[in-house]
């Protein structure tokens, strides 16, 4: 047990938590794998703190993907071993855990981060240590590091198609926009780009309003009042572009429904809203609200059926503390990421990060979403399909619209 690891371990959980948290694999970071012939992958997902319910499940999906690869004989003749850490939803701790994984555990790749702020803290570490981070969330774009693989979509291929759909004839012909977000980089950048986009479409500045709330904000009463007042001013169909994160999402949706606003009055486009955020909500009053992701649980096709079955089996077999019948986009993206890494390493015939990076061009993988996702040699972005989901009574999303193919990802937005 090294000095550094003991300290981070204490900060992450507190001594009292240690005994109880062990089923979640907390001490795994301390267990230095001596097994010869194995190659290590590291996870940077929080099992505690505000992001625990969302990020926690990604640890298991990475392990599940590694098991699948091992069952087929591993990569380059070596088995894959997954190391887990718990940055406890505490942004600086992500960087510290990343450094430890890269320096001491010598992991071949990192899979991790959910919020953009956690990714931004890890970025200098992976660049300095010449590591490789697979980031499974759709995000604000405007970033391109050769040490990060952006497995999910930048706004040009997720947010903009959804907003386009809502503004179009087939959607609701949206004319006015209330942007409500948590106060940090992702919502602010997305909203900046959206404003630029609307400006380019000739929509006047009076047609939108922007509000931000602190992390973990829960008292949405006055904000929902403001949204109602904004909508009643007339001037065309209003929508809410929701970029609050974590526990603020269900709290907002609950208040919205309780004040009697239906999706047919003012639809909410929840950019970070996943199936797991609807757990515990009475969604019969929320039917019709929207989200947009590169994967939805209701995606058709054999690949998805296989994925959902393996996840349900894995949850049962390994006694995973999450629901076996709920799958969310970042889970699938993390799963894709492990397979993409394995394919690249096999193609390169090496685990050296520069070699693996060079092998990315031309890789493609049958994603559970039903799309064949692909990488080019141009940058570390992955082209994915786009879904627009509509909340249903059963705490899930029906697929309202999906893209014909996988749009080419554009890292830097021309509208920012």
């Amino acid at each position, binding site marked *: 047990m090294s000095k550094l690891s003991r300290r981070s371990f204490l900060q992450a959980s507190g001594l009292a938590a240690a005994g109880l948290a062990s089923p979640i694999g907390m001490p795994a970071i301390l267990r230095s794998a001596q097994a010869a012939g194995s190659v290590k992958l590291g996870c940077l997902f929080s099992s505690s703190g505000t992001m625990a319910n969302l990020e926690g499940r990604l640890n298991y999906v990475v392990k599940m993907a590694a098991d699948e690869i091992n069952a087929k004989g591993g990569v380059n003749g070596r088995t894959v071993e997954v190391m887990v850490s718990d940055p406890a939803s505490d942004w600086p701790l992500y960087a510290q855990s990343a450094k430890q994984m890269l320096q001491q555990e010598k992991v071949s790749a990192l899979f991790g981060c959910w919020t953009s702020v956690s990714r931004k803290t890890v970025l200098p570490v992976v660049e300095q240590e010449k590591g490789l981070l697979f980031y499974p969330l759709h995000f604000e774009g405007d970033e391109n590091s050769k040490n990060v693989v952006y497995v999910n979509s930048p706004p040009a291929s997720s947010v903009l198609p959804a907003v386009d759909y809502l503004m179009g004839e087939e959607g609701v012909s949206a004319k006015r926009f209330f942007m409500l977000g948590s106060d940090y980089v992702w919502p602010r950048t997305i909203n900046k780009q959206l404003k630029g986009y609307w400006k380019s479409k000739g929509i006047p500045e009076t047609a939108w309003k922007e509000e931000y709330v602190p992390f973990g904000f829960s008292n949405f*009463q006055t904000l929902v009042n403001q949204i109602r007042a904004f909508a009643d001013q007339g001037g065309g169909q209003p929508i809410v572009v929701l970029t609050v994160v974590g*526990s603020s999402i269900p*709290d907002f949706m609950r208040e919205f429904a309780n004040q009697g606003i239906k999706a047919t009055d003012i639809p909410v486009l929840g950019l970070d809203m996943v199936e797991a955020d609807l757990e515990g909500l009475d969604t019969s009053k929320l039917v019709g609200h929207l989200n947009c992701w590169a994967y939805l649980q209701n995606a058709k096709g054999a690949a998805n059926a296989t994925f959902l079955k393996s996840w349900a089996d894995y949850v049962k077999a390994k006694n995973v503390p999450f629901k076996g019948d709920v799958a969310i986009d970042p889970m699938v993206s993390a799963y894709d990421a492990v397979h993409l890494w394995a394919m690249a390493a096999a193609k390169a015939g090496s685990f050296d990060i520069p070699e693996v990076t060079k092998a990315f061009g031309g890789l493609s993988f049958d994603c559970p979403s039903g799309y064949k996702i692909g990488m080019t040699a141009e940058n570390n972005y992955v082209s994915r399909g786009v879904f627009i989901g509509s909340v249903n009574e059963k705490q899930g999303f029906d697929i309202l619209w999906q893209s014909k193919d996988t749009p080419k990802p554009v890292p830097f937005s021309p509208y920012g």
Partner: protein
Amino acid sequence: MTRCIHLLLALAGTLLALPAMAAPLDRPALIAQLCGNAGAMGEAGAALLALAAAGSAEDRGWAAPLAKALIDKKLACDDTGAVLGDVDAVTRAPRTAPDTARTPVLSLKNRAVFETADAALALRSAPDTDQRAAALRTLERRPGSLPEGLLDAAAASESDAGLRTQIETLAQTAALNSPDMAKRINAINRIAETPSRRALTQISALKADPAYASDAGFRQAVDRAVGRIDRGIAIGDTLAALYNGLSFASILFMAAIGLAIIFGLMGVINLAQGELIMIGAYVTYLVQEALRHLVPALLDWYLVLAIPFAFLVTAAIGIALEASLLRHLYKRPLMSLLATWAVSLFLVNLVRVIFGTQNLQFETPFYVTGGVPVIGDFIFTWNRMFAIAFAVATLAITWAVVRKTPLGLNIRAVTQNRDMAACIGIPTRRVDMMAFGLGSGLAGLAGLALSPIYSVNPQMGQNFIIDSFMVVVLGGVGTIAGTVVAALGIGQINVLIEPLWGAVAAKVIVLLMIIGFLQWRPEGLFAVKGCRK
């Protein structure tokens, strides 16, 4: 006699409607449209709506279940048509859907059309008065999208006098653009009766109408209506600000009152207070689940029935905590701070391991669902009202316990002078324990009161700990009155600042104001004479 008139009216309605239905309804074509793409579905929705206004009784009866089936995703489309539950959608002969059948999903735009069509059909043909009244409430939301003749026909065939009046009122409101000037003015006055921003936008738009310049009566009616709506909105906004402030204050108060006892009276910085709130919410959940399995008939009342459980379980945890841990640390406040922090981490992880990290699923009983629009844009929501009433009741009981019972007397005596209290025979150890139990139990009640408003998960306690310390310190450590006033103040100021400068600034400004105030008056709003140290 009246029945005769009804019959005549109904007959007249049918006769008036006749020209609109020149061609008989092509049922298979309509079903095919319902199974088509978004555009075709939209047309089918519009056709259903038109049918509600002008279709024959037989066609309306046939179409009545269709819109609802689409909304509920109960229509299964296959190559030969569609299946509605277990009958064919066209012929209504028994038929089961093949496995290959698909269920069309309504786009948002079509959903609005189908909701209106469903309500329109229900208003014309639902057998139950309550169903028709509910349908009318749906239609009231979109008076502009109703086809001509629908409301007149519905009023003519309506048997319930009260409901008929409501339909006629809505019909008058819908006549805002009628060619008949008297009807227009009547509609304006009707709209002004229920002031809201939407009504204001609607009426203000009439100022651009040519009639506004040419017709004095019309102009007067519009101006009067605008003035009336403006007043209504102003009153509504004021009430809404007060209500929002009060409801936020009640949440702050519930979160802080337990701490006011533990920190205020006993001087223990209890960082596990938020987790005790969380446990109160989990106990409420367990009571709900127990009722679901044992007495499902009482499920709706779980929030009330859980009150003693939420209080007693958290109080027991508090007492156990005091007896096993904190009593040894009274002389070392810093150690008690660390110990309660460890307890809070322990409790979070314990709950996480037992229940998982996801939000719990609570039933929403009727008494905490929805709200009633009062005036302007002010909506009186029942879940917030529940929290306010609960806070008031908690305040009354806490005050009674501290002021009127022997236990309260002992607590106050120990707080003011521990040594003297011990000298005159008050069992100070036991009083400490009971006071800690009371404070913890109140936290449990807070968890119960907050569960209809916020998401319940292992992390929820962390949201309340800072706010509750803020309230207790500002109020003046150890006074219930201070806690009340501080909660009201912080709640109201927050609500007033939020719309002006945003929620982030509100939080910062309130914190700065509290810091400023404490610089000026370090003892808080209400100072207690004599402290335990």
